[in-house]
């Protein structure tokens, strides 16, 4: 689902049959990578995941959290770098998101070979597009078995996660939606 090479949108309205049998406490989450961190966000809060596209930078506002504007479904949405929003340290894995984004050439050569994407987060008055380095797909996460945030992640990203869980064989940090939304509000003011 995440590997659609056509670069088409991933429709989150479709239920993933494989993840259905995980009990009452399972949460449908989208798992993605930001720099070196694997994170998860409730699929509910996202409208869709779209392929990378040209992002028009905003004069006098460059170099911050806001990358610029991109066309998603015919509307101009504000794009933010999730790494900067969460304060995830630059792992030096790839050039800055802005650089990759400019000219629409996705920096797909790095990481697991999967291209960067935009998570379209439901927000008012307009949705916000969050730049992530790679999307793994939609998984079920058992919220009863969430562990405390490991001390290794005690940095800025810890403020935005509610706990740590297992998705397949990967440890992912579940993002706190409320904290994410307030980070976005602050991001607009930066």
């Amino acid at each position, binding site marked *: 689902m995440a590997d659609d090479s056509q670069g088409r949108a991933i429709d989150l309205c479709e239920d993933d049959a494989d993840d259905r049998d995980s009990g009452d406490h399972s949460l449908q989450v989208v798992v993605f990578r930001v720099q070196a961190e694997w994170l998860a966000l409730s699929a509910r809060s996202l409208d869709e995941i779209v392929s990378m*596209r*040209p*992002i*028009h*930078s*905003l*004069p*006098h*506002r*460059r170099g911050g959290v*806001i990358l*610029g*504007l*991109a*066309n998603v479904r*015919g*509307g*101009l*949405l*504000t794009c933010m770098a999730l790494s900067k929003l969460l304060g995830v340290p630059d792992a030096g894995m790839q050039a800055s998101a802005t650089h990759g984004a*400019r*000219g*629409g050439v996705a920096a797909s050569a790095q990481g697991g070979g999967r291209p960067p994407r935009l998570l379209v987060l439901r927000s008012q*008055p*307009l949705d*916000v597009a969050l730049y992530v380095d790679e999307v793994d797909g939609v998984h079920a996460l058992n919220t009863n078995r969430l562990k405390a945030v490991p001390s290794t992640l005690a940095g800025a990203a810890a403020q935005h996660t509610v706990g740590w869980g297992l998705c397949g064989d990967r440890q992912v940090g579940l993002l706190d939606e409320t904290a994410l939304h307030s980070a976005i*509000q602050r991001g*607009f*003011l930066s």
Partner: protein
Amino acid sequence: MTLDAYRDASMLELFQMEAQAQTDVLTQGLLALERDPRAANHLEACMRAAHSLKGAARIVNLTPAVPVAHTMEDCLVMAQHGRLVLTPEHIDALLKGTDLLLRIARPPQPDGSHEVDESAITAYVASLQAMLDVAAPLPGGLNERSAATPSHNVSNATTGATATGMCTTPSASSPSHQEASGRERALRVTAKTLDRLLGLASEVTIESRWLSPFVKSLLNNKRQHDRTVSGLESLLASMRESNAGPTWIGQVEELIRQAGHTQQHLAERVNDIDRFDWRIGQLNQRIYDTAISCRMRPLSDGTSGLARMVRDLGRELGKIVRLDIVGDGTRVDRDVLEQLDAPLSHLLRNAVDHGIETPTERRAAGKPEEGVITLAARHSAGRLHIDIADDGKGVNLARLAGQVSARGFAPATTVSGMREEELLAFLFLPGFSTRGEVTDVSGRGVGLDAVQDAMRRLRGDVRMSQVTGVGTCFTLDLPLALSVVRALLVEVDGEPYAFPLGYVDHALTIRRDDIAQLEGHQHFAFEDRQIGLVSARQLLASRGDDAVARERLEVVLVSDEQQTYGVAVDRFLGERTLVLQPLDSRLGKIQDIKCGALMEDGSAVLVLDVGDLLRSIEKLNSAGRLTRIGSVQAEQAGQTKRILVVDDSLTVRELERKLLTKRGFDVSVAVDGMDGWNMVRAERFDLVISDVDMPRMDGIELVSLIKRDTRLGVMPVMIVSYKDRPEDRQRGLEAGADYYLAKSNFHDETLLSVVEDLIGAPSS
């Protein structure tokens, strides 16, 4: 609702539509008849309209309307037959009749009562009949047509005729009717639906572009195929040379034949799809253009009632006034049109009341008795200009100046130094009226400020000019559409930007040799003028290096009232129609940017705010000077309190600056709220003093922005305004202002003492 009641309701609606259409015809015709009472075509048109209304009223059982329409018809028939010459009194009565008919057509109130009671109708019919009786004392054939007691035994023939008339509203039998029916049928569509249509049309256009590269890839396949066939052919040739067996040769020949078939087939398919691509492209373009044009309506849609209003008002005030409308076919976006109604009627009422003199005064001034107000609309450089000019007495400037100081808006010495423009600006203040007495028409103190507010909401502007004794002219300058704009697309540092065509004076290419250095700035000559050159990269703070040593530079000329500048861009991308999209409001105002739009390929383009851009250029231009004086300022920066004065009036700005500088404060100025907002974010200030009424961003918005900001919120803000009604004060303080000072007090010690109360002495 019973079925009958439902049927009645829909019939009544039908009648309302007919009544609206016919009263439009009547009003138009009657106004023309007032000037030429014998114009046969107008008499005929009006008579038919009245007649159709009478028939339609009978069909829907709207009995009260019948005698009204009938008497009006009588009056018009008499005029047609020359038994009566229509006087302004007749026209008045007939116009009143059309109003009455419209009111009768309105649905009954919830309690079942009607807006118009029978006595009003009887009284109207009687009064008009009385006028007719005076005109034609001989009963003649008229009595049988008398409408005092309308006959309900309508012959079948009449009913049939009027029923047809009602269905094919308006019937086409006179010039003005034909004109009306030539107008296309209008539908009501919500703006949201139309916007969605527009959005989808642009998506389809973008999506269909996928075909072109697809066709190209097919062509590549075809060429590959061609090579395979020629390969096979040369294989066959060498097989023949080497005397290969006939079976082998036969097989290769068969392969070539088959390949030839598919080759031909492929060529046809490619051809088909190529043609399809072209057709679909054409269609998409037309869908898109049509969707855009759906939003445009002729100005006449919004001006139909104005001529009547001017005429009625004139008569009420004992003046003879005519409204001439020029360019009522000018096409305007429907959103703009709807919001134009209020300001236009305001300005026209104003012109009749304040501008046009009484017939006696006009005679004395050597003018014709009839005053003329001209409403002229035209497109100019992608914007709509409407002039509302009267040939009245203009503004008494001496009296205006007297009032400004008498009301304590400014001391007499300041007032005497004001330019005419600055004086006239007082007329746009709420509560300011030049009339000694308050009239019913205007001069209630809520006039021009409402017009100005409406214009700002429309992203437009209103200017006033006058020549004492000759007339007053208001010029409205508006965008044609709120959401669609023609723009020049340019590339700056690899990204597209759009200049709305309305702000572009010229787009030209200059050679590097044409650029001269003047006082450290780059200039070039254009049409005998020296034009300052600024790089768009520098303005938009792009990271890209601008030292591109190109032989030719592409330059966009933009100007305000005082200055013209050339903005050098990387390259022109062409002219496009853009559908504007608002950006996320949480972004706030982005300097130099107005809004966004999508290009044909679906990528984002930013639409430049040329007003902002010009201010940025002026700042850049004076930056050299500023840095030089900056060194002196820096020494004092530690101790001297810094104050930002935000006001759009040069006089007030300078007055405040002088006052505060003299006291020892370090004062900077900003020309409006937006400029102020950009400055408080860029520099540190101890206090902001702001006016309320300013273009682009008013003082209230500026204060609330500052107070909402976590960093700037602690800085005291003071409002100084001419508006000093309690509700104005309330608004300012609610927004977060620390003090609200009436401008009438700012020239004395009050301003300084308030400032020192807020931030203490100039240096600490």
